[in-house]
């Protein structure tokens, strides 16, 4: 159970920091929220840095280097509640598109033969530690962050959305991409984003992670009628490469 004005740490591993930008874009809401928190360690936001234990630790990014993996394990030990923020933390994110065995080839091509690489692989936090809740999205939705933190402050365990992106896509009055013959991962993806990508004219690539009881086989069968295997693979590897193995 989280207490009043909990001690909070906000960490980021390798990523674009866009989810933290979404926190700052909360503006007045961030101000209201942080009054209820005691943020004692947040590298991007402040120089003040106290050591743990922490009541709540929020981690953005994927732990790519051994230092980051060690830091994650230490934070797990020091934190009552550990939460993943955004697709990199929750799914491995865009960096996870790179298959681990291909990394060596690309280190050489991008950095040259002499370079000594530091990264191991781009994996979600859950590959190394138990995580109490995942706030999905690339980037996260600011209001979803507020909802989850408020749930915790109220002493409740936050719940995942029990419906897919399709539900919110209907609410947004979007025509269905799949009915129009265009690939989309909305049916298997957890809601909470408000179908923002489809509303903008882009596909859903599944950055909110799989919904419960996602029918991957069913969707794959439908997609196979719309496009070729390679394109289906590209869709599934955008954010879900470390979630779905060899579907």
């Amino acid at each position, binding site marked *: 159970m989280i207490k009043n004005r909990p001690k909070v740490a906000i960490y980021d591993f390798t990523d674009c920091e866009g989810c933290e930008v979404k926190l700052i874009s909360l503006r007045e809401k961030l101000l209201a929220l942080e009054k209820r928190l005691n943020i004692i360690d947040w590298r991007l936001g402040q120089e003040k840095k106290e050591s743990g234990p922490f009541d709540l630790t929020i981690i953005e990014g994927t732990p790519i280097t051994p230092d980051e993996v060690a830091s994650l394990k230490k934070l797990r030990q020091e934190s009552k509640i550990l939460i993943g923020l955004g697709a990199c933390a929750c799914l491995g994110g865009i*960096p996870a*598109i790179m298959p681990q065995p291909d990394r060596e080839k690309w280190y050489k091509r991008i950095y040259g033969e002499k370079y000594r690489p530091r990264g191991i692989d781009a994996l979600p936090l859950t590959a190394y530690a138990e995580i109490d809740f995942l706030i999905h999205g690339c980037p996260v939705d600011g209001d979803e962050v507020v909802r989850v933190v408020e749930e915790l402050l109220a002493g409740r365990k936050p719940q995942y959305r029990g419906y897919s992106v399709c539900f919110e896509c209907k609410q947004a009055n979007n025509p269905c991409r799949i009915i129009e013959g265009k690939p989309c991962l909305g049916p298997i993806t957890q809601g909470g984003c408000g179908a923002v990508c489809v509303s903008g004219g*882009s596909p859903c690539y599944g950055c909110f992670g799989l919904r419960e009881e996602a029918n991957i086989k069913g969707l794959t069968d439908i997609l196979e009628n719309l496009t070729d295997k390679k394109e289906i693979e590209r869709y599934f590897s955008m954010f879900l490469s470390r979630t779905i193995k060899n579907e």
Partner: protein
Amino acid sequence: MNKNFIAKIEGHGNLTVDWDKDKVKLNIFEGERLFEGILVGRTAEEMHWITPRICGVCPVAHGMASLRAVEDALDIKVNETTRQLRDLMLCGQMIQSHALHLFFLSLPDYLGIDRGTELAQKNPAAFKQALALKEVSDEIVQVVGGRNVHPTTTAIGGFHKIPTKAQLKKLLKKLAETATAAQDTVKLCLSLDYPELKVDLKLAALVNDKIIAVSSNNISGRMESLVKNYKKDIEEDIRDYSTAKFGKYKGEETLVGALARLAIYGDHSYDDKLDFANPFYNNPAQAIEIKIYHHNAQAIVEKLLAGDLDSRIIPPSKDASLIGIGAVEAPRGGLYHEVQLDKDNIITEANIITPTVQNLTSIETSARALLEQNKGRSRKELERLLNMLVRAYDPCITCSVH
């Protein structure tokens, strides 16, 4: 393991100082994401979806560089509405990034606070300006791009969706309401005391298909080179203390970003208040740019409202070269994306040079100059100044380790 990273910069870095030799190394710790490898095998249409994820502070700039590269490769000339909407979105991007950096990362150094939100107590008027600028810039990118971070409406040859005139009218109203916030931010930033520093650097910025460079000590003499030679002219080298490459423009330490742009294509109305040889002045330069891009955004929205909006997407040419370069002045300076496609529009080669890669080398040079020019100060004081200097550059380490 628990390294002391420099706080309030984008990404993970710190300094190793050799106090006897006045030498400073900028260590970069970010994990390698290998974006140039990730892109190979993806479609041209996915490039501007993937590359914004290099940086959550300047995603619009990355998306735009990719679109320009792909459209160059496919020989697409976008229509006037698309061009204006993209320019508008880049104005929003500049204000978003500069306001975030100034109010939340950099200005706290000068205002005697730590976390940016403490400004709400310390200087409520300035904090109101910060929120107003953050709000209006987020709204520009939201209205045009569909989301304030990582746009959803952008497409090769145009937009999947363009805003309605009603949305643009609402945006214009908000721009009018926030004009004083932009002006007051300039006043605030020009009223602050910046540490003294004099560094001999190149300042470089993009002008159409050229890179223009001037000397920090004499901004009137201009050198120029062609963007298409960017890879030859911006040399990158590998350092064993960094996962980012370190760049030089034509063999010289170069500063890119707000201060360089004002030296090269500002209207010079603030030249007596800026010191182009002092990188700390990148901070007031960002404030001045907030005002400039705020003004530009208003002008573009007015133009869009005066004419008809053309939502057509331009298709690729049949005999396109399939090789293209896209260059953009991102908030932190010149950003270059290059792409090669096969006949099925699959990416076979990609190259990216970010502004911070160019700035990293000159940060070390400036840090060294700072130590040499402040002999009487204590180590603690010097460490504080060095961190302030790094922050003043507004480095985006996540960009630099793409």
